[in-house]
């Protein structure tokens, strides 16, 4: 079997516009949440989130001639890809038809200025037809591409001349985890030698955040936003919306070794399952995520005992965290293993469709630096008492393999396992 390693990482997050800045601040236990600055949410049930600030898309990150097709999330993705591709040094070392793209994307959101422009002069009583005609009259065909989920993958393909396989996936919070998992399969299979994989999303939109408020899924701790994302803590009351992107360069191991690439770690295994339960809930027995973790380990030929760190999905919602902790207990603790567990959503919030990319990147960096980042705000847990949570402060530790869980709204689960670069992980 062809083995797959990570040779480049790029991150844009509310804690930094680069990989290392973000990672250092996550390890330091910084928390990004704060009052919303991108629009006025005064009086809202939730009026804070984790925003990316000071961001400017570098011209070289985007293909020429497509500026009008780039929305906020896509800009994050393009920038993260530039950092990842530059970091990997793979440009010039891979044939165009052996380079592919696989990304997870969000639902997107039309911003207020667009809404206002689009709605001008319409007949509210017949809004949808008139709005559509308005769009036609405005001759604004760029809006079509700007807000289409497939656009980011297309633009990455144009920019990096990636003529290999291409995927765009939306399975909510599991999106970029699945995108990375399918990229792993593609390289193993021989469809590509290098895949640019990850995801981007932005919940910093009026409609997006209002929708999650309406669902009652986000924290309402308006008086103390930095304390709001508290995965596994008994005081948790919902997730904290966020935005950003992470892209990784996945490369066939021999290809990477031959060109002398720096290797962060080896992407060992991927498991994906479905809950087949309810659109917004997990089954109480945690069966879907249990199977995903077991399948990822099996897929990678990884002994569960070698998984020393778990970057949990840990959204800070009451149900998710309780069931995920129980599932970790069943898979690991009950078998005598005690990996460190943390949720970095406590630092950077929930990036939804980009969460898989960011958290896989954190796993790779935890393997590189041999340190487990903390779960901020975890004072007292009401989840499984036997899970080995990393609370408040990062913990230096021997980390041979790290596992990332993604549990999607709608029932899709994805789990990825990454191992240290020099490890003999038993892949045959």
């Amino acid at each position, binding site marked *: *079997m*062809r083995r797959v390693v990570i040779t480049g990482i790029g991150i844009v997050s509310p804690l930094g516009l680069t990989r290392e800045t973000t990672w250092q601040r996550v390890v330091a236990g910084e928390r990004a949440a704060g009052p919303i600055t991108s*629009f*006025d*949410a*005064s*009086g809202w049930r939730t009026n804070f989130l984790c925003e990316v600030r000071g961001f400017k898309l570098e011209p070289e990150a985007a293909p020429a001639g497509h500026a009008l097709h780039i929305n906020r999330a896509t800009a994050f993705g393009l920038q993260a890809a530039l950092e990842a591709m530059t970091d990997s040094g793979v440009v010039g070392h891979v044939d*165009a038809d052996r380079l592919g793209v696989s990304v997870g994307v969000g639902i997107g959101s039309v911003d207020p*200025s667009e809404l*206002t422009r689009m*709605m001008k002069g*319409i007949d*509210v009583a017949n*809004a*949808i*037809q008139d709005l*559509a005609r308005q*769009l*036609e009259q405005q001759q604004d*065909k760029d809006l*079509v591409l700007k807000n*289409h989920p*497939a656009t980011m993958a*297309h633009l990455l*393909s*144009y920019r990096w001349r990636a*003529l*290999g*396989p*291409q*995927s*765009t996936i*939306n*399975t*909510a919070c599991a999106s970029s985890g699945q995108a990375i998992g399918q990229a792993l399969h593609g390289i193993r299979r*021989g*469809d590509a*030698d290098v895949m640019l994989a990850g995801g981007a999303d932005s919940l910093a939109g*009026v409609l997006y955040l*209002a*929708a*999650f*408020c*309406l669902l*009652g899924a986000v924290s309402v701790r308006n008086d103390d936003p930095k304390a709001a994302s508290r995965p596994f803590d008994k005081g948790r009351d919902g997730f904290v919306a966020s935005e950003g992107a992470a892209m990784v360069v996945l490369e066939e191991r021999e290809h990477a070794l031959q060109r002398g690439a720096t290797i962060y770690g080896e992407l060992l295994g991927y498991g*994906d*399952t*479905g*809950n*087949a*339960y*309810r*659109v*917004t809930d997990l089954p109480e027995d945690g069966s*879907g995520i249990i*199977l995903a973790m077991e399948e990822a380990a099996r897929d990678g030929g990884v002994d569960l005992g070698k998984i020393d760190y778990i970057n949990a999905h840990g959204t800070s919602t009451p149900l998710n965290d309780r069931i995920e902790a129980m599932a970790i207990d069943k898979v690991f603790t009950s078998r005598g293993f005690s990996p460190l567990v943390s949720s970095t959503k406590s630092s950077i919030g929930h990036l939804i469709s980009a969460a898989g990319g960011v958290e896989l990147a954190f796993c790779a960096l935890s393997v590189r630096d041999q340190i487990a980042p903390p779960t901020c705000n975890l004072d007292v847990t009401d989840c499984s008492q036997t899970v080995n949570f990393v609370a408040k402060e990062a913990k230096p530790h021997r980390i041979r393999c790290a596992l990332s869980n993604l549990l999607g*709204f*709608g*029932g*899709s689960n994805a789990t990825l396992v990454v191992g240290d670069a020099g490890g003999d992980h038993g892949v045959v």
Partner: protein
Amino acid sequence: MASSKVSERREVVVTGIGMMTPLGDQPADILRRYHAGESAFREITLYATRGSAIKYAGEHAAPDLKRLPDRKNGKILNRRDATSVLAAMTAFKAARLDEAKYEPHRLGMFVGSSCTHLGDLTPTLPLVAKHADFAGGRFDSAAFGLEFMETLNPILVLKLLMNNAVCFGTISLQIKGVNSNFMQQEVSGLRALGEGYLAIAEGRADAVLAGGTAQPVEPFQIYEAHHCGWLADQTVPGFVPERAARPYDQTANGTIFSESTAFLVLEDGVKARARGATILGRVCGFGIAGEGEPDSARPDGPATGVVRAFKAAMTQAQTTIEKLGAVYGNGSGIAVSDLREGLAMRMVLGDRLGEVPFCSVKGGLGDTAEAHGAVSTALALAGVTQGVVPATRNFATPPSALVGLQLASTTQTLKQPLTAIVSRSRFGVSAVLLVEAATPGR
């Protein structure tokens, strides 16, 4: 580099189909009606078209929400997603998967879906208008959000989720294994079938429901497509919707949209035969490739992604172009797209250019967008069974660059069962799936 482990791949067969198109819900019947020249198009009834240049499209029958296992879901699912769930259930039942003894986690589901309908945002629009200061170009997001949260039903939000087809499909059929939801425009449905094929071939699932769904007969998508120049002009004197889309014809000037959904049950061949399933055909290869540019960047050049996707699919199938019996193209009547695809097919077919029947069903069925790959695959399997390649309706004379392709306005004979289905997006990605008749006893 060739694909690895080809010899270790499991055989993947098709054992069930569920679909919904403007020409019916059974592949053989759809082909019969297609060949009989029945019209898939009518005046749009799904929304008021007053003042619009586009008044005709293909609409299928309304989904029967009473068939949903949980009728409450009928309130959450939009027309596209409800049709998807019902088509998936039909395929599941046709394959008798409900009687099979598969573990739920060995069953998978892959969907190629269109994006959220802006039309589903309708309930929010009066609020947007109320809180917009059009003269000043400002929007009172605070007041909007407060009223949004106080007056709207959370079901609105659930309706907007783009992964509802896979979510409610897996819930309805208790599918707990591999899954995904692809959003790659016209390539989506074929991408889903390809991933389903690979999941079984590589041992990650025993059976998979895979397909595509699209409901482009929606005001935003219609208007957007019209504005982008993708739709045939319906305002010309004497316009006849049945003549609107003319794939690969020199007079092509756009397409006509149709809503459609198709799901196929893909299954491990050994296990399917062991349980006595009816084998409708085999899937034997899949390839997908980016093109690095949109059609608009090179309007008169070949879509090289098609060439690379073909090569990948052929390699997987361990076959050669000499074995190819027919190609179901993406041709929609959008001149640039059809030209680029046709030029790529010239490169793919080489010396066999004049021997391999090439067709598109979009002239008679309409442009089924994200569902295209799955719809064409279902029809291709029916064609393999009947030994025919469908006519390309409305095709008469190709542009000079496409002379030589075996296009015909009448039914052609299928001489070799290996059939390729091509899907491509005008924004630079192409996919190819290979299917053939099942080999008895393999």
